[in-house]
């Protein structure tokens, strides 16, 4: 409720000296705003210190749990070195990361290009919806990992195969969200637009599309999560590069520190991308987050 007061306060005339008063900063207020960040930082640092102490004094086989510092070292070295030109295999995390990241972005791009228009068409036309929806639901409900052997059969152990798996993983959340966005467009907004003279095309362009945009972004957010699974699966099963491959290889060569380093990198990558889309959603559709501040 306190937030609601702030919300209303911003719209008042800020030039009016009686309405807005400078209340200054108190230590308490600074803490209230930074405590989330501070607590999380301390929490994570403590976690890694405990991990480090456990592996030093706990008599734990480093094959199962490497030292946290070893993991960070692997990560640092892996991200700052690259394979020499013409190398058959790269041990550099950066090389594999770039391969995976580029594949993910490329796959997501294609998934968006297919998913958004597909979802919009399905939401906008009953016949297209009736024709496409059984296939969409069938493929969306099929565990995508089951398709991997088939794609390897079709496309071999290639980057194309890896990207295809990412696309098939990410496209359905995007499509289904866009579809749902069109379907749930508020009736009163459509009625208002019609009363004020909108034709069919204007209804779509000026009401349905902007209304659907935040849905599309949350579809992309889900698509990123699914796409990342697709990346790792595709590389685990068939490929000689990418983070998925590196996970497999580091385990095969008993380099547990490297394995943990890659897992950490995947976590950071996934969280960064998802937070970016959260920010994007809040940026393009501030009215949605304003309701549950």
């Amino acid at each position, binding site marked *: 409720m306190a937030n609601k007061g702030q919300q209303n306060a911003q719209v008042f005339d800020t030039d009016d000296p009686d309405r807005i008063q400078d209340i200054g900063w108190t230590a308490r207020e600074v803490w209230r705003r930074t405590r989330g960040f501070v607590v999380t930082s301390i929490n994570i640092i403590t976690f890694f210190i405990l991990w480090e102490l456990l592996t030093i004094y706990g008599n734990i086989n480093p094959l199962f749990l490497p030292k946290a510092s070893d993991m960070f070292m692997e990560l640092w070295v892996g991200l700052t070195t690259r394979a020499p030109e013409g190398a058959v295999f790269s041990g550099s995390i950066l090389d594999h990361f770039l391969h995976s990241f580029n594949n993910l972005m490329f796959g997501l791009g294609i998934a968006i290009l297919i998913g958004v228009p597909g979802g919009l068409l399905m939401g906008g036309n009953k016949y297209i919806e009736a024709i496409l929806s059984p296939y969409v639901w069938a493929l969306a409900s099929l565990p995508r990992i089951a398709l991997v052997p088939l794609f390897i059969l079709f496309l071999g152990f290639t980057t194309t195969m890896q990207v295809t798996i990412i696309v098939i993983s990410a496209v359905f959340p995007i499509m289904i969200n866009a579809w749902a966005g069109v379907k749930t467009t508020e009736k*009163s907004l459509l009625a208002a*637009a019609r009363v*004020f003279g909108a034709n069919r095309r204007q209804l779509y362009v000026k009401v349905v599309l*902007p209304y659907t945009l935040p849905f599309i972004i949350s579809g992309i957010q889900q698509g990123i999560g699914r796409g990342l699974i697709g990346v790792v699966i595709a590389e685990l099963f068939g490929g000689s590069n990418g983070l998925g491959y590196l996970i497999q290889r580091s385990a095969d060569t008993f380099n547990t520190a490297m394995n943990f380093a890659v897992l950490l990198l995947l976590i950071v990558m996934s969280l960064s991308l998802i937070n970016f889309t959260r920010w994007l959603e809040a940026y393009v559709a*501030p*009215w949605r987050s304003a309701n549950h501040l």
Partner: protein
Amino acid sequence: MSLNNEPIIVAKDLTISYELHRERKKLTALQDINLEVKAGEFVVLVGPSGCGKTSFINAISGLVPKETGSVTVRGEEVTGPGPDRAMVFQDYALLPWRTVESNVRMPFEFQDLGVSEAEKKKRVQECLELVDLDGFEKSFPYELSGGMKQRVGIARALITHPDILLADEPFAAIDAMTREAMQAEMERIVMETGQTCVFITHSIDEAILLGDRVVVISYRPGKVKEIVDINFPRPRMSNSEVKTSREYAQIRDHIWKLVKDEASQTNRGE
């Protein structure tokens, strides 16, 4: 106000029905409605929930097709929405991604009314001033309170200078204090612009304070049960004698009984 002009809205034997999708049945929302609204008149519709008041207003706006009978505006049959009729919605229906200014301007964007850019700008300013929202052009609806949102809705409806203002329970979602202020504002705006207004409400007080005539509609199928003329001088909202007068109490009691009869039918289920 020019009450003695000829009727601007004429509903003749108007019947509207809906298909109940699951049961393959038809629900008659309104049956054989006959009503004439004169230019500059403020007509308020009251009646129990589900009696078809909204259907009537939607038939005038052109959002809902009629089954039989006719609705004409200035002698022309209503076949769809038009710039001569504007509407204020219960849930405001503002586009949340647009600023106040852009929302108010919306009717110009959807239809070419041959209004120059300078004139559009001027009208946006005029309408925002009329509803007391100048200075809020760049605010977004989610930054505004309910009453302010509805004032944006009213400004948007007035921007094209429509002949007819339709309002579907515009103040139902607004708190009691703000609501009274909004009613006063509505009365002032309609007095200033000389607009014809068809207004739906559940509040009998609101109906008596705003309406030149109050039309009581019966419950399913909706028919005109009685039309009550209200002759208090305007402005009524700022005049405390209106609300405390004997006549007011009598009219209020009379309409309340009419509505209550109908509402009790709603309670029987159906």
